[in-house]
């Protein structure tokens, strides 16, 4: 006697493996389609954000050619390149963590181009924000190379501000090494905003963007710092380096921006060399590019990089800056976004072109420099 149509004999398997194979294949195909789509969109947003800055020449109906890559700066001392004017209104945030995951699969020039645009950059602090003591955090910024650290698929990669790879190593961060992850999830990954401090070979974590696949982009700084402080230590990332953990990570002490906090950040002893103070608005979300909701202060007391020094630590008479000459003869800094200093007249350009026999000039100008920003060659 046969069972009713919808009643499967109980001791038979619930699902055939053939059906499972079919479903898994469909799932795999859907995932790959999604990846391809994301990739198409992600590359698009790279181009978008590269084109974004400045008024520039009005774009015609033709699609714009990709701009020349920004000249890569070999950063001798890796402090920030900031300008007083700040980033203007460019607060769009194309970077979401799916882009980052996707981008972590990018290689070479594409990857560099992409990662060069993902960090949140503070503006110079030129006045005191309202409600500073209530709404802001302060901490001493470690001196070193600012970088983006992505741990995923069993490897940890750090990339400098220009997008080039600094280190590639196993770490105790989620998904950061091929050892078995206690969380059990293969999807586990994290994205940190760090400064690599040469002296003690440590990554100081100054912000957390994703943790165990959980995005913190849309969380307030208050929550991100809370999460950073509670999660980083328990992951084992703060342990000393070992075979499966290439570099030690550390959180920086963050204070409320009241008098005590300011004092502690400004004068307090830390395990690293200080390079200015960073101020973060507690309510601000993480966003790529310059933002007035993060501010930086440097003076002689809290940063050795406030002005240039030579290899002996002496301050040279002249401070140097490299400016880039645009096609329209404007001179701009390599800051992001660039600051326009002025224009050269045609005469000089022709003379120089003649001298170097080149149409593509990076123009070196020595000027006497007395602003509290410096740029290295």
């Amino acid at each position: 006697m046969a069972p009713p149509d919808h009643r499967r004999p109980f001791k038979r398997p619930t699902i055939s493996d053939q059906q499972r194979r079919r479903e898994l294949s469909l799932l795999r195909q859907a995932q790959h389609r999604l990846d391809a789509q994301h990739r198409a969109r992600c590359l698009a947003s790279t181009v978008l954000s590269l084109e974004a800055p400045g008024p520039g020449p009005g774009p015609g109906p033709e699609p714009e050619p990709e701009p020349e890559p920004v000249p890569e700066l070999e950063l001798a001392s890796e402090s920030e390149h900031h300008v007083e004017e700040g980033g203007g209104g460019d607060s769009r945030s194309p970077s979401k963590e799916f882009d980052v995951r996707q981008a972590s699969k990018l290689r070479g020039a594409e990857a560099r181009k992409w990662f060069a645009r993902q960090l949140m950059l503070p503006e110079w602090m030129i006045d005191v924000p309202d409600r500073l003591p209530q709404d802001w955090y302060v901490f001493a910024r470690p001196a070193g190379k600012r970088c983006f650290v992505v741990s995923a698929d069993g490897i940890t990669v750090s990339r400098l501000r220009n997008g080039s790879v600094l280190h590639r190593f196993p770490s105790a961060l989620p998904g950061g090494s091929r050892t078995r992850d206690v969380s059990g999830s293969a999807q586990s990954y994290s994205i940190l905003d760090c400064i690599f401090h040469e002296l003690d070979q440590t990554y100081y974590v100054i912000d957390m963007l994703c943790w165990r696949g959980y995005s913190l982009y849309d969380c307030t700084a208050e929550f991100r710092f809370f999460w950073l402080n509670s999660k980083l230590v328990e992951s084992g990332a703060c342990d000393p380096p070992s075979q499966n953990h290439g570099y030690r990570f550390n959180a920086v002490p963050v204070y409320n921006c009241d008098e005590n906090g300011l004092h502690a950040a400004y004068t307090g002893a830390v395990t690293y060399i200080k390079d200015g103070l960073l101020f973060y608005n507690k309510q601000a979300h993480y966003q790529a590019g310059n933002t007035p909701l993060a501010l930086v202060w440097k003076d002689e007391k809290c940063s050795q990089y406030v002005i240039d020094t030579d290899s002996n630590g002496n301050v040279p008479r002249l401070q140097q800056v490299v400016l880039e000459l645009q096609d329209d003869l404007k001179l701009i800094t390599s800051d992001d976004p660039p600051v326009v200093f002025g224009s050269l007249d045609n005469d000089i350009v022709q003379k120089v072109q003649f001298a170097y026999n080149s149409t593509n000039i990076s123009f070196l100008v020595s000027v006497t420099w007395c602003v509290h920003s410096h740029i290295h060659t």
Partner: protein
Amino acid sequence: MAMEVTQILLNAQSIDGSVRKHAEDNLKQFQEQNLPGFFLSLAGELANEEKPAESRKLAGLILKNALDAKEQHRKYELVQRWLALDAAVKAQIKNCLIKTLSSPSHDARSTASQVIAKLAGIELPQKEWPELIGTLLTNIQQLPAHTKQATLETLGYICEEVSPEAVEQNHVNQILTAVVQGMNSSEANNDVRLAATRALYNALGFAQANFSNDMERDYIMRVVCEATLSPEVKIRQAAFECLVAISSTYYEKLAPYIHDIFNITAKAVKEDEEPVALQAIEFWSSICDEEIDILEEYGSDFTGDSEVPCFYFIKQALPVLIPLLLETLLKQEEDQDQDEGAWNIAMAGGTCLGLVARTVGDDIVPLVMPFIELNITKPDWRQREAATYAFGSILEGPSPEKLVPLVNVALNFMLSALMKDPSNHVKDTTAWTLGRMFEFLHGSMLETPIITPANCQQIVTVLLQSMKDVPNVAEKACGALYFLAQGYEDMGPSPSPLTPFFQDILQALYAVTRREDAGESRLRTAAYETLNEVVRCSTDDTSPMVMQLVPHIMMELHQTLEAQKLSTDEREKQNELQGLLCGCLQVIIQKLGSSEATKYVFLQYADQMMGLFLRVFSCRSATAHEEAMLAIGALAYATGSGFEKYMSEFYRYLEMGLQNFEDYQVCAITVGVVGDLCRALEDNILPYCDGIMTQLLKDLSSNQLHRSVKPPIFSCFGDIALAIGENFEKYLIYAMPMLQSAAELSAHTSGADDDMTEYTNSLRNGILEAYSGIFQGFKGSPKTQLLMPYAPHILQFLDSLYMEKEMDDVVTKTAIGVLGDLADTLGSNAGPLIQQSISSKDFLNECLSSDDHMIKESAEWAKLAISRAISI
């Protein structure tokens, strides 16, 4: 017009093939040349009492088959053909049919009933044949018994054939009155009573209004319950079938009767003949189904006001229901484990017990444990088997907190029973129970593991040993190993607790596939399925062992392809084996091809493997074809651009797959593989695109192709466009109108049932994925302008989707992404259009604040692209 057809109809049933063939040709010719004459002749033959029973019956069946077909398109043609006939002809045919209902020949009456129901199915929805029900019911109480029986049977078939909306309430009332009177115990004729009871089964769906009326419902329920006590077993069985149907259709009306029904069913389960007892158990299984659904809805919906309230019938019946069901478990049949189709009281009772466990959860445990403890060590195998079966049945439903301590105690006992129990039945059920433990209580989700480093080795050893037992026990042991492996699948990177035993497991499974008797009890299939699952959960440190398996599996496949001169039966088995081997290779490709560490070594086998798959295509078996196609898709993705070298040879099989309307699964899989190829070859797929696109467009225009294949075909357009970019240009004039008309059709879902809504959403998703791929493919090309003319319609489509509010999350996500892709590719040219659309405002804003992570992501992308398009 009518013609003498008796002899032809008799010849058509001749044992002589050539005579039969000749007669069939004659009939076909007659039908083609003169349809009205053909129908009239058949109806006349059926109605003529002087004709032989055989020719009458066949005449009726041919007539019936000329009115209906399974395939939708054909069915529509037949219906139209009937409706177009001359009214007088139709009337004459109907008269013949009605007249036949009073024939003394049972076969003639019964055949006429079925034909009348088919005609009613065509005509009543068209508001034709309005007098039918009245004619049938006139004087029904005065009719002779045989005519009354045929009339009731006809009413039952009509209810099965016609949807309730097509019959007016007045007629429904008359039908129900006649049917319930026919069922009444006062009806002396058993044939009439049986026909009436079976008719009620079909008429229940019409009785909404009557079940809402207390008096009418009470009366119907009383008559049904009385019929369950009829001395005639067929009537009792039919009456219980009515109760089962009532339990699902009118669950919310059952409360006043449930106590009586329990008593009736309990008596039937204990004492009645098997067909009746099975229906009585089915009643409770069906109540479980209802309550599981309702409680699931409670769980997912925090407002708690689900449409149907749960009456907790099962929870209330628990103390009496459980002993009743446990009792059935002791009524096993000797050979039930060897017989795949077996179904008996013990199996139905166990199934119901499992459903009860899922319905009530923890409450079942204390009621079942004493039975298990009492019987599990008894000398009679029936008692040990029943106790084990009871334990296995309750492992899904109750909480892990409740079950884990019990399983921890039972596990050792079960392992030793699987080795030492003298009864194959007990071992079979023991292995199955172990599988259930691993399926529901083992995995990374659970806090307290039942499998620990301390007992893992023992478990694996016992299962591998048991895989050498008789086929039905070995099959269950494979199943247990399947779930054991599955529990470790999402454990993340190595090392897995299975690593130390991995080699042994692979070898043991491979050995099972090669057993002489692996054809019995689907043992070979189970072994390959388990092998697949073990491969899926392999890790970096065990993948070299999987790699070693590859040449063996390829060799097996090679051997199946070499086999010559097989009988039909052997060929069928060979094809099945090819399917299993291709399936296994597919899983291995996916596993080893997805990790950089193993991919390159593995791909050394690619040439050989591809050669084998191509040979599989030349064996004509849909299953093997499908598996090989899936494997090739995985291989294409793993090889990437390197797959190009296989394309010239593979292409014709790809085309064959896309043309396979009949086995639509093969067609659907092939469409998916085209997507894999697009992503692997990128613009190197271009030379094949003309052929592929032609085939896909043909598929879309076909009425024969199963509708489920159409959404993936649209998605595939997107895959192709993304791969070949602006080269998609030449297909735009064909693809875009198709997308557009499909979009118009799918924009509205109002009034559709769940299945239709689900299909519509998958269709929308396919259309949107096509648009997405096309826009992204054209991006940055000077030819983007070619897409401009389509933009207004696409935006309109998005707007109408938004207005309709019937999108699921997946469609929402894809739709808002298309908005971004459109803005991204068309840029400022589409700015004004975008700004006019509702999608760019309300829809986008809703998505931006969505809780769904994926929707929000896509919306942010769209916002970015739009802001750029309109800022320039």
